[in-house]
């Protein structure tokens, strides 16, 4: 009996000590740091509204931090903000602002390092060099945060959401702007990026480097140096994204370099200098996309092969397709081209003569960029007509044998 009583006592005791408590934190000198230092694993910190002049806050235990009325952690433009090194930490509803900048180390608003199952939800990260920085993080969720900087400095400027050597991340519903790259992935695998808005970033809205088997869906990339760059990567699925207004010299809606086995479906490319630029790509399926009002819709370098372009709409682009060689190892089928002027006598909604989407002037301007001055001149009109009758410059393998007569419902 005694033995059992001891057990009972021990059990109730351990229950009491392990019982998660909620601690209220109010602004004061080192209030947050002290509270986090005292908190036990499983505790919840309820951070009250106000400004906390604190920095380098290390979270080394599994705790939950909930802000009430968006409390502000201000790193005084000198220091890093929060560092999370424990698993299953949850941070929601706080604002981290004004970290320092350095050319040696990457200073971040919130850094997650060697941890898993961390959740960052509904936070605001403003004017930080790097916004959210994940290194060796696994299975983390970055949900509905606002990451913005108004500081323009390309040397020390960092990325909005930066992930390095991570896997199984979920990045959803964030609003990222003003950084170097909005979202940056380097050595990241099996992750999902969806429903984010990434705009006015200096380089790319979203950038993949050496990151395999990821997907991004339903995102909007607007007015970035370039919308999305996918480089040196395998197995990327890109569904239902919008690429708009990515204008400029070296600007692309989507830049693909050395990528294989990927899918580009149901995206909208509107008003980009070059909607898709492909270089060294293999086996990429481009299906059911809309290309509208772009300078160049597709720029497919001769180093690309085995890609299929099927059932896309090409509407009022200056040039639909351009390439730099005569050899074409990619296939075009059943696309709608507004420049197609063939006929459909058998009424099967498929044009009876093939469409050659490369205009002769696109080939010329690819070789001599300055020739763009004469675009839409009388001379070019003649060249275009002559080329239609007697093709000599355009790659003759590059054609759509079954162009659609009507716009495809996407």
């Amino acid at each position, binding site marked *: 009996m005694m033995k059992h009583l001891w057990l009972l006592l021990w059990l109730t005791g351990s229950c009491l000590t392990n019982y998660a408590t909620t601690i209220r934190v109010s602004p004061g000198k080192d209030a947050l740091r002290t509270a986090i230092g005292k908190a036990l694993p499983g505790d919840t910190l309820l951070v009250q509204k106000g400004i906390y002049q604190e920095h380098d806050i290390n979270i080394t235990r599994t705790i939950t931090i909930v802000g009430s009325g968006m409390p502000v952690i201000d790193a005084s433009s000198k220091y890093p903000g929060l560092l999370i090194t424990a698993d299953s930490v949850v941070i929601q509803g706080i604002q981290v602002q004004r970290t320092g900048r350095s050319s040696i180390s990457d200073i971040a608003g919130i850094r997650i390092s060697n941890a898993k199952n961390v959740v960052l939800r509904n936070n605001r990260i403003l004017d930080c060099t790097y916004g959210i920085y994940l290194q060796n993080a696994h299975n983390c969720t970055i949900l509905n945060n606002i990451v913005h900087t108004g500081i323009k400095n390309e040397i020390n400027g960092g990325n909005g959401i930066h992930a390095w050597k991570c896997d199984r991340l979920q990045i959803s519903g964030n609003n990222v702007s003003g950084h170097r790259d909005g979202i940056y992935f380097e050595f990241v695998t099996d992750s999902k990026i969806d429903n984010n808005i990434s705009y006015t970033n200096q*380089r790319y809205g979203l950038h993949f480097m*050496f990151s395999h088997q990821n997907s991004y869906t339903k995102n909007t990339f607007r007015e970035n*140096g370039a919308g999305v760059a996918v480089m040196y990567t395998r197995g990327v699925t890109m569904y239902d994204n919008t690429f708009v207004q990515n204008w400029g*010299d070296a600007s692309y809606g989507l*830049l693909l370099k050395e990528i294989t086995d990927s899918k580009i479906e149901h995206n909208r490319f509107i008003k980009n200098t070059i909607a898709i630029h492909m270089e060294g790509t293999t086996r990429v399926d481009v299906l059911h996309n809309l290309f509208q009002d772009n300078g160049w819709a597709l720029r497919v370098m001769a180093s690309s092969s085995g890609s299929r372009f099927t059932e896309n709409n090409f509407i009022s682009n200056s040039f639909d397709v351009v390439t730099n060689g005569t050899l074409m190892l990619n296939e075009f089928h059943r696309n709608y081209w507004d420049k197609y002027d063939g006929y459909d006598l058998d009424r099967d909604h498929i044009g009876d003569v093939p469409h050659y989407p490369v205009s002769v002037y696109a080939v010329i301007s690819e070789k001599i960029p300055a020739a763009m001055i004469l675009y839409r001149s009388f001379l070019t009109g003649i060249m275009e007509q002559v080329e239609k009758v007697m093709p000599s410059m355009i790659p003759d393998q590059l054609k759509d044998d079954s162009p659609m007569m009507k716009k495809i419902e996407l």
Partner: protein
Amino acid sequence: MKHNTLIFLLGFFMLQFACSPDFEPVDYGHDACAHCRMTIMDKRYAAELITPKGKAYKFDDAICMLQYMSANQVSPDSRLLIADHSDATHPFIDARKAIYLHNPSFKTPMNGNYAAFASEKAAVPLKDNLEQKLLHWEDLTRINP
């Protein structure tokens, strides 16, 4: 009539200047790397190759320049320039004479992770910090494919 000749001569010489094989400043945030197509943003690692005819190719790091040189026919008389990592304004220096350090902590745009320095003196403090060897251009060309 005399004036016409003068204008012609002036114009001719000005065109000559325009064509001399000279350094072309990198427009950070707008120019794209000639090899990897990424927009060049990082002043600390940028590089430039100028052919004898004066065409400038810009790169975002030393490895991109090396890979471009091995993938394309580049005249050995080309000028190679690279940003000086130690100087805060990052001026371009002769890449063949520069001293290099290699460390993942540099995090250059394409993971080449080479930083260039104008002199050994400038590189030594970082070298000791990172416990690295000083490298020369020849070492880089040997390491790289």
